[in-house]
């Protein structure tokens, strides 16, 4: 249908001196505000800067005028190239959508040897048939995964503890490799494992098939073992021993670790970070606990307020920056994701902070029983009896069925923060994302209520904090940030000419 508009005179500028281009602004603190244009470029200035720009009281030719013009907050010409340039930048920022679903998570078993308080899904049982993915389901799931238009497919093998179902892993990997080769797709495989049951034979298999390892390390022994109980209370010892073994066979860069913050962790962020240094990791992801599954049921044991997490995060980030200053390269992954969005023209592939939301669009989860979910968190909700985000089943539904299901269409309606109340006005829109599954889980509403949302508060506070660090004038901090987003060491950044940093 053709769109209709008012006549041309309705759109004429009231002030012909300059025309505004789309941007949003936000107070950073009592003194500064940040202005961010539609493609994520920013200007930080004293409170009142936005008002001066909007009311068209900027002096033509002033430094501020030139800055706003150069960063495309205003235009005083009629160049058609300008809109093309902005469109190119917008497309670059959203290039993560290209190819649609790239991350495919296979839950090969729910069985696990741990009984972590915050775990959403694991089962302690010897009954393989009840909770392992069977061969027919595996084959159907691989077929669906490979129907994705993405040229690059990431297959994440997850559980429970996936190594307990190593026969299923071998089957899925074999099918996926053959199909990827036939379809000329690039296939990357990651196994998310606690490593407790890893053997040399398994590691040699992972090496042969270029499978990377992502494991869990919650901190030093006392914290790790408190968070991740095993019958023998030796999770930390097994994990660290097997990280070393995995590195020997696979190589250091093929083994990564993730931590989850519980209330036990809150007062020990520096100890946790120091443990990562002791284990010679060069990145750490200070992650809050997910509000799903058993983490909700056991909130009294694991939960905490978002303010407590933000204090934990900021203290941790300061400690990490100090370690970098002292010569140890260590990146904080969440800050790195946000800084990439803030300081570069690019988006990231991080599915939990995207708009449109990653759910379904960038990630699909194939459960052991063949059910397909929009995200891993959606699967965790299902384990609590909430099937809102179950898109279908590999045995009954086609790819078209999954993406035309009511469940997916409801998600899609809430997937863009550009059209969510409060997000639509937010200066951090380009850096943040929409998470309908989180909103549904915590506020019983996929659209969510931003003023009382922990998701919103966490991201607002962390992004503001990063802007304060960026504008603090501390050149060493900026060099550390640039090292993170370029995936190089601080020494490499310091070798560059000063003008480059």
């Amino acid at each position, binding site marked *: 249908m*053709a*769109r*209709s*508009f*008012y*006549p*041309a005179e*309705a*759109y004429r*500028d009231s002030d012909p001196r300059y*025309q*505004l*281009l*789309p*941007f*949003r*602004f936000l*107070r950073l603190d009592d003194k500064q505000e940040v202005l961010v244009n*539609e493609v994520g470029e920013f200007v930080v200035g004293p409170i009142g800067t*936005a*008002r001066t720009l*909007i009311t068209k009281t900027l002096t033509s030719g002033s430094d501020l005028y030139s800055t706003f013009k150069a960063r495309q907050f205003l*235009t005083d*010409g*009629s*160049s*058609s190239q*300008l*809109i*093309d340039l*902005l*469109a*190119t930048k*917008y*497309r670059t920022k*959203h290039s993560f959508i*290209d190819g649609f679903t790239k991350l495919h998570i296979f839950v090969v078993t729910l069985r696990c040897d741990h009984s972590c308080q915050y775990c959403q899904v694991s089962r302690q049982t010897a009954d393989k048939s009840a909770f392992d993915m069977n061969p027919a389901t595996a084959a159907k799931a691989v077929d669906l995964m490979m129907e994705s238009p993405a040229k690059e497919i990431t297959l994440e093998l997850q559980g429970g503890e996936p190594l307990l179902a190593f026969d299923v892993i071998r089957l899925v990997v074999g099918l996926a490799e053959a199909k990827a080769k036939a379809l000329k797709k690039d296939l990357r495989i990651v196994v998310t494992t606690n490593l407790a049951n890893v053997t040399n034979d398994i590691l040699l298999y992972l090496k042969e098939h270029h499978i990377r390892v992502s494991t869990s390390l919650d901190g030093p022994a006392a914290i790790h073992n408190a968070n991740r109980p095993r019958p023998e209370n030796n999770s930390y010892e097994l994990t660290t021993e097997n990280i070393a073994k995995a590195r020997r066979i696979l190589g250091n860069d093929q083994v990564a670790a993730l931590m989850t913050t519980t209330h036990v962790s809150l007062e020990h962020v520096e100890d946790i970070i120091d443990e990562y240094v002791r284990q010679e990791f060069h990145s750490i992801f200070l992650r809050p606990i997910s509000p799903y599954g058993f983490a909700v049921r056991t909130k009294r044991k694991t939960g905490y307020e978002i303010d407590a997490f933000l204090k934990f995060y900021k203290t941790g980030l300061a400690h990490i920056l100090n370690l970098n200053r002292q010569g140890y390269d260590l990146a904080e992954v969440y800050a790195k994701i946000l800084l990439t969005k803030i300081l570069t023209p690019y988006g990231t592939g991080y599915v939990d902070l995207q708009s449109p939301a990653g759910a379904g669009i960038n990630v699909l989860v194939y459960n052991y029983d063949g059910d397909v979910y929009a995200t891993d968190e959606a699967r965790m909700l299902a384990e609590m009896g909430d099937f809102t985000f179950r898109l279908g089943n590999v045995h009954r539904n086609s790819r078209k069925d999954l993406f035309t299901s009511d469940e997916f269409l409801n998600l899609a309606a809430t997937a863009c923060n550009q059209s969510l*109340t*409060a997000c639509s*006005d937010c200066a951090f829109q380009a850096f943040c994302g929409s998470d309908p599954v989180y909103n549904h889980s915590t506020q019983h509403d996929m659209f969510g*209520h931003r*003023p*009382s949302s922990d998701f919103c508060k966490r991201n607002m506070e962390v992004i503001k904090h990063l802007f304060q660090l960026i504008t603090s004038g501390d050149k060493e901090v900026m060099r550390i940030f640039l090292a993170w987003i370029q995936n190089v060491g601080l020494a490499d950044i310091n070798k560059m000419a000063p003008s480059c940093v």
Partner: protein
Amino acid sequence: MAESPEGFSQSTSEHEATIRLDGRIYSREAVLRTCHAFTDVLYVHVPESADSNLTIQLRLKITRPSLEHPNPTRIEDAVGEFCNSLLEFELRRQVEQETASVRQLLIAKAFSESGILEEDPPGAISDPVGFEAPSSVVQIRPNSGPLVKIAEP
């Protein structure tokens, strides 16, 4: 408390406040967006008004300190912040109004290479909706025609 701007008056009791605004200065849209931003600490009511003025009734959600909320917001502080935010939301509305067509064009152009659109969207910064080069995608109608509008003039 923020300095009271023109077209503004308020009355405040211990836990409630009523603000009256000149509707010629503040848009209803900016008022409603501001109200939404405060719905974590305030109950907000915007009753229908017989004239062009806007009335906003605010009531604190939490009035007494508790272990969970040891320092509840005071109504004076809430009203002050509300008024500051109102000015910001009014400015945001102005930006949105002035840039809506350019924003729509740049997003359409950004995704036109994705193959979703059958043809490139027309328009340049000086002519964002293609007045000078009408096409089958965009059609201009006079004000009196069927009202299918994307922005208020």
